[in-house]
């Protein structure tokens, strides 16, 4: 992956929009916590309306899926060295343990490999640290050049 510090500064300004201006992420109350080149951390608040089973009070897996999908996508954007659009190709999620009732969920993602057309990600959801994960995810994302954005480099995968 090529790192382009100037371009990352641009991404850093734009990245919060990928969560804040996304209606579904807003609906679920997601927020971007941290951004580094190729890495992103986001938070999902505990909301009673997103409970999966009222008998346990545990948040539905679908919220974890959405958070992991979103933060993985942001990590891909944080790894770009030129503007491209991203679309999730696939996402696999393994659930290790239920989330705890009443606690926010943090998700951290890294884009660990990128070709011209595809990016690969790993992500972890937890309350405190990666030592005790709620779920892990691995994803792949299709990359497309955005019309109107000049492509400045021709380097391949």
């Amino acid at each position, binding site marked *: 992956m090529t790192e382009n510090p100037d371009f990352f500064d641009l991404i850093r300004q734009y990245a919060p929009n990928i969560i804040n201006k996304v209606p579904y992420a807003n609906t679920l109350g997601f927020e971007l916590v941290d951004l580094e080149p190729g890495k992103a951390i986001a938070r999902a608040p505990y909301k009673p309306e997103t409970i999966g089973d009222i008998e346990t009070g545990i948040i539905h897996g679908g919220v974890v899926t959405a958070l992991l999908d979103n933060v993985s996508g942001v990590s891909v954007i944080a790894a770009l060295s030129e503007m491209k659009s991203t679309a999730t190709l696939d996402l696999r*999620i393994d659930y290790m343990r239920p989330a705890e009732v009443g606690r926010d969920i943090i998700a951290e993602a890294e884009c660990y490999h990128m070709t011209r057309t595809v990016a690969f990600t790993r992500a972890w959801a937890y309350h405190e640290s990666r030592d005790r994960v709620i779920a892990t995810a691995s994803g792949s994302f299709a990359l497309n050049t955005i019309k109107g954005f000049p492509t400045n480099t021709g380097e391949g995968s």
Partner: protein
Amino acid sequence: MSEDILQRQKKLQDYLNRTPFADFIGFKCEIMGDEMTAILPFEEKIIGNPSIRALHGGATGAFLELTAMAQLFLLSDEVSLAKPINLTIDYLRQAKAENLYARATVTKQGRRIANVHAEAWQSERARPVATLSAHFLLGSGE
């Protein structure tokens, strides 16, 4: 026959009543005989990309997960809800700002673990927008 359908409808209603998240994203379903079709009516809040008006992958994914769990609950005698062990979602096409439909098939149901496949589509059944393949833990086991 109608007795069966009534019973299934009641069972499904029980499932939905105890899952606030289903109501939150607007999950609906219809039972036709032994088949269930789930519906996610389009709402602005499930948009993931406002510039191209595409649904959020997390909304599509959650909808497929709810469909799979509803289908499992409908077919099993379990009182507790199935818990997801893992799932893979393939995003095949862009989901547009329209209603989303899904059906799930229980591929294998063991004593403790079930494998479920689900497919979501929009205007054409033959052109799915996303598919799900998942394993669930049944019963109250940890």
